[in-house]
């Protein structure tokens, strides 16, 4: 008999919607074993061990009084049989709050347990050493320098160390070098923020650019700045729940909204209640947003009490399972001992009250929750699991409480917390396989083997090849790390979530679907192709455009450009974010080529490219017959010996593209050399990591890839097998063939020793 899968669904669907809450019908609540056994006006509902005399069975079988449930179909005979069996077997109700409470009651107040005695410098190791000693286990030896470097570079910067960085660390003879490396990595604000922002985006469900025609607002500028400045965690929490300044992250409370009505449990303020409870307290209020929860101790009115901190009106009507209850709830803190909020408080005051509640020094749950999340991120498993159920028992409560209070005592400094963990011997222990960690009787043995995240994978490709993806900045572009772009088929397959919900763990299990993307997906294929050319120094520099209109949403833009010496013209008409590119009408008007031999209309020159001739009206001005092309197409003109020196005319976006259901936005380019479709605009600034010089021969490529991706040299055997990739080449002293290089790079990226953090 399994309560969770066999009994709970029946109760949840058919009994609890009515029999719960403050004043359940007949005084009977089916929210816990205790209340069901205690029963209501007609006595106990359940007599454990005796289904024949249990009122519940008599009711559902219509043997006594009105049949239950009173609405809908009667319970099926299978369901009744299950209930009987369950009662006869003692009505075991394992998740009942009373059972959980007796076993473990998670404290709210902070607690600083004494540090166990010992010689370890890092306090974490004192606790872990005591833990191992108690179990008569040996403290594991730390991993090698190279393995350590690989781990901390990924954990702080989200990238592996370059060959040079690794070498410099290995050659450092200082006994303090590990702590110094951690400090050095943490002190690079940009690299640290560029990595950790992905984790925070998951946690705060922030996804720049993802919108659903409803309210949603990115908090990226605030979040990036907070990470770069290492804003204390309590200040971050305060800004998130009480955004007062214009730069504050109000998007967090706004939530994810689609145009139209929503279920009562998903209103923006219920989302705010659920998210603040989950993110900051490790409490799941999702059940308790519809009805009193069956899986934890939280009640419907508690969810509404929290929601009332964030709702426009401070009085909220309770809605249980889509049914209005006629009862109202006013702001109420989940831990009422930490204060109360006046019924008539303004929204401003309620937000401020929420900030006080989540940052109250007496609220030890908030630091425990974040400390546990960091532990899980770095060890693969939390001190408390699941990390979103902080009411569960930690495997080492003293360690959790000590870390949390130490974090608070150090100004809620997230980098300090990272440093504490990363410099511990516990973190530096050899990795263990996660399967055994899923066992019920968890025993800590070291960090788990972890899979690289989607962003770590993509950024490693950028690092090793020197070729990064681009994001627009102003009218130009900059090379960027993967988090800055919307998800790609590759990053989705590698586990980047659609951040409509809070994500505190990533699903990055190896699946066939994911492998298809890695083996045959276009995103990675293109990255490897371009990256290889870049590594070999064979990626031709992208030609600079001779004309770039920038995005044009309406009207005309005139140009008059120098094309002297051009043998050929490439004229591009690109979509720049139209609502409906297919109905956007854009073209080239009155374009002339000017030279010593005279002036010619472009439309009259010979070309194999196709275009329409259409009259264009832009900003109500008539432009006559123009060359109209679909967006994302190009016109190519051979100029050969015609000797033109200038090109002039205007680009136009027709007024028919202006309605909001089309909202045309077009970018026009002229090139005098074949454009690189990936690099139409000018690229500014430096790549996230400076590129290494081109590789000269296969052996150099092999060593660089092993050192960078695996943080070790190939063995003799591996070197021999690696050379076989390049075997078709007659001599090893030559530049690798691009195809061989691509295949080798692909193979190294697919290598389990790369894809897992050991």
């Amino acid at each position, binding site marked *: 008999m399994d309560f969770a*899968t066999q009994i709970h*669904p029946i109760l949840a669907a058919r009994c609890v919607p009515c029999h719960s809450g403050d004043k359940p019908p007949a005084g009977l609540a089916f929210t816990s074993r205790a209340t069901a056994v205690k029963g209501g006006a007609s006595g106990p509902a359940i007599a454990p061990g005796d289904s024949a005399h249990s009122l519940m069975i008599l009711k559902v079988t219509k043997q006594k009084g009105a049949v239950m449930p009173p609405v809908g179909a009667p319970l099926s005979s299978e369901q009744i049989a299950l209930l009987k069996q369950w009662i006869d077997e003692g009505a075991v109700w394992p998740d009942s709050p009373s059972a959980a409470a007796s076993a473990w009651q998670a404290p709210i107040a902070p607690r600083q347990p004494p540090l166990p005695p010992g010689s370890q410098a890092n306090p974490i190791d004192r606790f872990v050493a005591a833990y191992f000693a108690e179990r008569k286990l040996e403290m594991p030896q730390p991993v090698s320098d190279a393995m350590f470097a690989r781990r901390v570079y990924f954990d702080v910067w989200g990238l592996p160390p370059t060959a040079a960085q690794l070498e410099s660390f290995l050659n450092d003879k200082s006994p303090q070098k590990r702590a110094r490396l951690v400090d050095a990595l943490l002190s690079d604000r940009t690299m640290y923020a560029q990595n950790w922002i992905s984790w925070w985006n998951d946690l705060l469900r922030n996804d720049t650019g993802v919108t659903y025609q409803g309210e949603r607002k990115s908090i990226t500028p605030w979040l990036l700045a907070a990470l770069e400045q290492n804003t204390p965690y309590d200040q971050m929490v305060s800004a998130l729940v009480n955004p007062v300044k214009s730069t504050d992250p109000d998007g967090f409370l706004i939530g994810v909204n689609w145009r139209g009505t929503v279920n009562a449990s998903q209103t923006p303020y219920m989302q705010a209640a659920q998210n603040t409870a989950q993110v900051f307290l490790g409490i799941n209020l999702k059940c308790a947003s519809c009805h009193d929860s069956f899986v934890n101790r939280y009640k419907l009115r508690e969810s509404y009490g929290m929601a009332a901190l964030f709702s426009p009106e401070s009085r909220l009507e309770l809605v249980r399972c889509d049914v209005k209850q006629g009862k109202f709830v006013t702001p109420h803190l989940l831990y009422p001992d930490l204060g109360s909020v006046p019924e008539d408080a303004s929204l401003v005051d309620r937000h401020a009250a929420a900030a006080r509640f989540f940052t109250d020094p007496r609220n030890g749950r908030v630091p425990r929750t974040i400390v546990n999340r960091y532990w899980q991120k770095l060890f693969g498993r939390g001190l408390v699991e699941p990390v979103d159920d902080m009411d569960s028992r930690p495997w080492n409560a003293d360690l959790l409480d000590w870390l949390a209070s130490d974090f608070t005592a150090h100004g809620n400094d997230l980098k300090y917390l990272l440093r504490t963990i990363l410099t511990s011997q516990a973190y530096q222990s050899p990795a263990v*396989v996660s399967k055994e960690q899923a066992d019920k009787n968890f025993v800590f043995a070291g960090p788990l083997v972890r899979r690289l995240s989607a962003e770590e994978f993509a950024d490693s490709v950028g690092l090793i090849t020197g070729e990064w993806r681009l994001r627009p900045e102003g009218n130009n572009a900059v090379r960027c790390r993967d988090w800055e772009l919307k998800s790609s088929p590759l990053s*989705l397959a590698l586990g980047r979530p659609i951040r409509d*919900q809070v994500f505190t763990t990533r699903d990055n299990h190896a*699946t066939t679907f994911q492998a298809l993307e890695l083996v045959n997906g276009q995103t990675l294929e293109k990255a490897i192709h371009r990256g290889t050319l870049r590594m070999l120094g064979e990626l031709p520099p992208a030609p600079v455009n001779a004309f770039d209109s920038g995005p044009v949403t309406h009207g005309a833009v005139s140009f008059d450009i120098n094309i002297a010496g051009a043998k050929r013209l490439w004229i591009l008409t690109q979509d720049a974010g139209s609502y409906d590119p297919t109905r956007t009408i854009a073209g080239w008007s009155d374009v002339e080529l000017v030279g010593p031999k005279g002036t010619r209309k472009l439309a009259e020159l010979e070309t194999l490219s196709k275009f329409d001739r259409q009259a264009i009206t832009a900003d109500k001005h008539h432009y006559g017959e123009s060359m109209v092309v679909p967006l994302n197409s190009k016109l190519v003109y051979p100029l050969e010996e015609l000797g033109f020196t200038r090109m002039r005319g205007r680009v136009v976006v027709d007024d028919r593209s202006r309605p909001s259901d089309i909202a045309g936005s077009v970018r026009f380019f002229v090139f005098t050399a074949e454009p690189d479709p990936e690099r139409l605009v000018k690229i500014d600034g430096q790549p996230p990591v400076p590129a290494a010089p081109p590789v000269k021969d296969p052996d150099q490529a092999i060593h660089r890839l092993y050192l960078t991706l695996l943080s070790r040299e190939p063995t003799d055997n591996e070197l021999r097998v690696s050379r076989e990739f390049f075997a078709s080449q007659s001599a090893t002293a030559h530049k690798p063939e691009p195809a061989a290089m691509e295949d080798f790079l692909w193979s190294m990226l697919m*290598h*389990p020793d790369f894809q897992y953090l050991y």
Partner: protein
Amino acid sequence: MNPEEKSIVHEITSGLSRRHFLRAGGAAALAALAGSEARLVAGTTKFEPRADSVILLWMAGGMAQTETYDPKRYTPFQPGLESKAVLSTFPSIDTAVDNIKISQGLERIASVMDRGTLIRSHRVGDLGFILHSRHQFHWHTGYPPPQSVAAPHMGAVVSRTLGARNPDIPAFIDIGQNLEIGAESDSVKAFHTAGFLGSEHSPFLISDPADAVSRTRPSENIGRTRFVRRYDEYKKLVAASPVARYGSDFQRESLLRSFENAHRLLNSPAAKAFDLSLEPRKSYDVYNTGRFGLGCLLARRLVEAGARFVEVTTEYIPFRYWDTHENGHTRTVQMKKDVDAPIAQLILDLEQRGLLDRTLIVIASEFGRDMMTEGKPGQEVKQQVQQPTVMTEMKHYGMHRHYTEASCVLLFGGGSPKGKLYGKTADERPVTIVENPVIIDDLHATIYAALGIAPDTFYEVEKRPFYVTKDGKGKVVEALRA
């Protein structure tokens, strides 16, 4: 092993217990071990499966019911015609079933109506505002967004619950929808996902059926010879790692197995099903009305080869295809040309191959359309699509507004009744349902039941049940089962 290799092995393996770190060779026997899969719990009622596969033919954009399968009084166009006087812009035609008439332009489907069931009383959710992608999300997952967990597409649920029929054919294939469609891209992506069920059950997306084969064979830039050689070399490289020579752990194994599966699929003879160039010319031509028609052909070939759940869409792009905001009549003429022959041929082909009995074909749309009502009668939504009181031009003629009260669904095969009409709408505006409404939850329950999945089957996620029909409350409509 030399000392250098030993130290590398030691690095990676010293933390792994013997129990989980298998000697090389033994590891191959390990079954796929996915860590945190949502647990499946079967529903309370047993349903004998009547279908092995589902083909969902999605009429994206809101197919006008009175212009297709629920025709009302026909009023030909003439300038000066009052909009409110018009219920249908097409005359009715007879079908193979005596009491069923449908709209002109669907003659081929009319001729096979005796193989299926027509539901005229499908009522979708009232979401308070018309947003196509939100209604589509609701229809495809059973839950209107936002939701507190990542809701899976119905195809992902079927994939996860029943698994693949043929290991070389992805269980859930989605044909015809481009995901980059401008402003609603993110909303459309939001339900083309397996959500919490994990990436293994994601839709295998084919935006252009004519090019489907490119998704199931090595990229043209690489070519099959090089592709095969690359994988051989890769395996040697991995085998050369001292770690692999020592043994393997289940994570390495599952990664390597995933690559093995992907390579097997990309080199499998079953991948021929994706290659429409192998279809006899005559048959190809019948289907070839465009991307949707070829999608139907591909769906047939895939089901023959063992696909579990195939969706073919006419494609949702705002204001295109079935999303008729103006020129409704003219556009509908074209849409019928696109869908009529291929749908009918799909039914006939499956029947001729003896597969129709075990394949459930569902034709549906996110809502219906009307000329006057926007949203739901008595509860009209804001921001109505423009429609003049009196029509002066042909472009005014058609069902331009979105109508959530009633739409049509057709079921063919897979244990659905033959030649049956179910549900009824009023003959005058507002053409509300007057008989046997079928809501999304109940329609889904009926589809799931045909596959042998009880509607209160659920997945446990975050310790909560997530039911395959909303809150487990979908009721199987017995009248829609043969």
